[in-house]
């Protein structure tokens, strides 16, 4: 097949459209028995027209058997240790070290040293395990937990408006809010201090852990139910362990080998109620946020009493 020499030059030159020759159709052109009509053609997915190209594509997929590394083998270097404090792993290949670093030190909780596969899961963990306000709000769930308000309404230092009286309807998502005077810090808005007997608002704050799903739930159990039912996740998904009190020094990482993890999940928290996995600094913050005049529930103690219930429910 010989192409005119000027064709390559035309390709290299700038864009442009040919000035079309005049179109002048004679009605006899389409007269029977002749039936030609100029028309663009479309072929659907499974059309046999695509057979040859599809076969070529699949030959390519099947023949590509080996990974082509830029270097024929992993470059070896003199053995070196991971520089992260507390890690004593030694490596002699940079690729191995890179994977180790990303897997174990990339998304690490600074409170309890647990490593997570992604920033998303780490964020959820920090919120659910180490955020004092989250702890308070989720404890509310066990006592009243009637109406959910959007998680965005929870303050982190900002003011919050709350409904003085709620109808007690169950539900998720946006609730009804009205102003209660000037914005207040922390959890002062519970209203109990004002002597009102009311249903305490409880936010839905357990976010679904599946990428792309924005659903939020009142309790971690509801969230797990959702993940199992809607997302077909395993009931023992290793990055959704319920919170239990453990000392940070144990440095447990979620998802140890199967048997070990199961053993841990079944462990009943036996540490004293007042013990907290959070570092001392956080406890002080916790104390500042909740004035002693506020009491959640009649005679309820502060702490992680609710954890025991949750653990048992697992």
């Amino acid at each position, binding site marked *: 097949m010989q*192409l005119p020499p*000027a064709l390559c030059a035309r390709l290299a030159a700038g864009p442009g459209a040919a000035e079309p020759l005049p179109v002048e159709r004679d009605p006899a052109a389409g007269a029977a028995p002749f039936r030609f009509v100029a028309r663009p053609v479309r072929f659907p997915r499974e059309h046999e027209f695509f057979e040859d190209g599809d076969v070529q594509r699949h030959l390519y997929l099947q023949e590509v058997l080996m990974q082509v590394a830029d270097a024929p083998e992993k470059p070896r270097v003199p053995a070196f240790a991971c520089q992260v404090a507390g890690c004593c792993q030694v490596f002699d290949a940079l690729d191995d070290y890179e994977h180790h670093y990303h897997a174990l030190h990339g998304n690490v909780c600074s409170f309890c040293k647990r490593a997570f596969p992604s920033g998303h899961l780490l964020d959820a963990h920090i919120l659910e395990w180490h955020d004092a306000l989250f702890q308070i709000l989720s404890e509310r769930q066990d006592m009243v937990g009637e109406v959910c308000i959007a998680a965005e309404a929870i303050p982190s230092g900002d003011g919050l408006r709350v409904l003085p009286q709620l109808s007690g309807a169950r539900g998720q998502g946006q609730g009804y809010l009205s102003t209660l005077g000037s914005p207040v810090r922390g959890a002062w808005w519970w209203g109990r201090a004002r002597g009102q007997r009311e249903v305490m608002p409880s936010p839905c704050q357990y976010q679904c852990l599946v990428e792309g*799903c924005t659903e939020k739930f009142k309790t971690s159990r509801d969230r797990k139910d959702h993940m199992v039912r809607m997302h077909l996740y395993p009931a023992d998904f290793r990055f959704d362990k319920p919170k239990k009190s453990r000392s940070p020094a144990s440095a447990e990482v979620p998802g140890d*080998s199967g048997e070990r993890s199961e053993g841990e999940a079944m462990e009943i928290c036996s540490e004293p109620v007042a013990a907290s996995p959070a570092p001392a600094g956080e406890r002080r913050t916790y104390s500042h946020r909740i004035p002693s005049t506020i009491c959640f529930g009649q005679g309820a103690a502060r702490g992680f009493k609710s954890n025991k219930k949750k653990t048992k429910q697992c």
Partner: protein
Amino acid sequence: MWSRRQGRLRPTVCGVEELRRRRREQEAALRKARREQQLVSKRLLREDVPEEAGEGCVAAILGEAEVQQFLRQAQRGTEEKEREGALVSLRRGLQHPETQQTFIQLEGSMRTLVGLLTSNQALLQLEAARCLHELSHSEHSTIAEACLPATSYLLTYLSGHSPDFIELCLYTLGNLIVESEAVRRQLLPQGIVPALAACIQSPHVAVLEALGYALSQLLQAKEAPEKIIPPASASSSILASTLPQHMLQMLQPGPKLNPGVAVEFAWCLHYIICSQVSNPLLIGHGALSTLGLLLLDLAGAVQRTEDAGLELLACPVLRCLSNLLTEAAVETVGGQMQLRDERVVAALFILLQFFFQKQPSLLPEGLWLLNNLTANSPSFCTSLLSLDLIEPLLQLLPVSNVVSVMVLTVLCNVAEKGPAYCQRLWPGSLLPALLHTLAFSDTEVVGQSLELLHLLFLYQPEAVQVFLQQSGLQALERHQEEAQLQDRVYALQQIALQG
């Protein structure tokens, strides 16, 4: 881009004839599968460990006891190297289908493997993932489906940061996706589409190629046009996600264009477009102009190098353009065709020549685009004439019947526009070529030749005399008994005799 190497389990010495024979067998098997709409292919990632003479290079089949032992060692070994070594041995054994069967039949084996996959030892994680990958490559659905407990973790790890690991997870997922609808029914609610949409922002070329592969497998699924592609499918929808825009970005020509990545995403785009779900949406994202520019780039690349792999990219690009050109949206945007650049025709012919030399089976696809460009476009028809492309087109006639019909159709597209066009087709090689195709036995070729002759006689009456002088009537008589051709043969005979 991947280059081709021999399989690890094949004998190292293999004659050229043997290779050709295997390739022919492979091709025949693929054709059969295609006709039965069972075309499934998987990719296998294996590290190319240099084989050492004197050692057992080929992995042995593992028995139940050995599999159990390796699993136990990997799970409970005290030394990390020992644990890793056990998994490596397991992985090598899993190259064999027999070992794979043994593995999945062993109680608790997958649970243990998943535990190792999610362990806090990074290298154990990697080896466990490689074991899963071997299993995912199996041709037996029971084995691939046995990997289902791991999918939520594979998806979770796509948001991680280790490119090698993510690449491995993606290829494993891609292999599992193509396995069965049952697998996809799990992966879709598990959020595979949002996970891929998040992962496509990775800067790593290997990750992007793997992602393209996984996505192409998802889009190839039978139920994709109803359940995966349309925007209304909510969380599992491809078109509702940011994937289409990113895909088009991967196809933009320029220094960042990576051929291996582009091939995968071009095929993804083809599966979406030929499903004809919501092509105006893609046109709105600039698909036509991106693909048109890519076509120009391909033609340039073809001229510069002898790389035979370019047809792997050219094929889906041609298909996407051809199908998109049939959309009404092409005309309405701005009131004119988005694709008007004459260089597209020049590029297409350069590619046709390339196909003619390297891959003649792709000529019909190129000519399909030419038909769709010229059918309703006086401008492109004029380009064919002004760029002297009629002669090269006629040179393709002898290739095959399918190609002949398409060449004649394109010529009809030009001729039907009227006398100004037919004058430019005359004199020249057209009439001799037509007399030649009238001698073909294929009814469709002859039929299209008759249509073209009719247009030529109508708009260029001088052609009739020359036709008669060159024994045209005898050429026509040959077909006057053929049912599908009779009427037209007779009509032309009348015109010729009256002329």
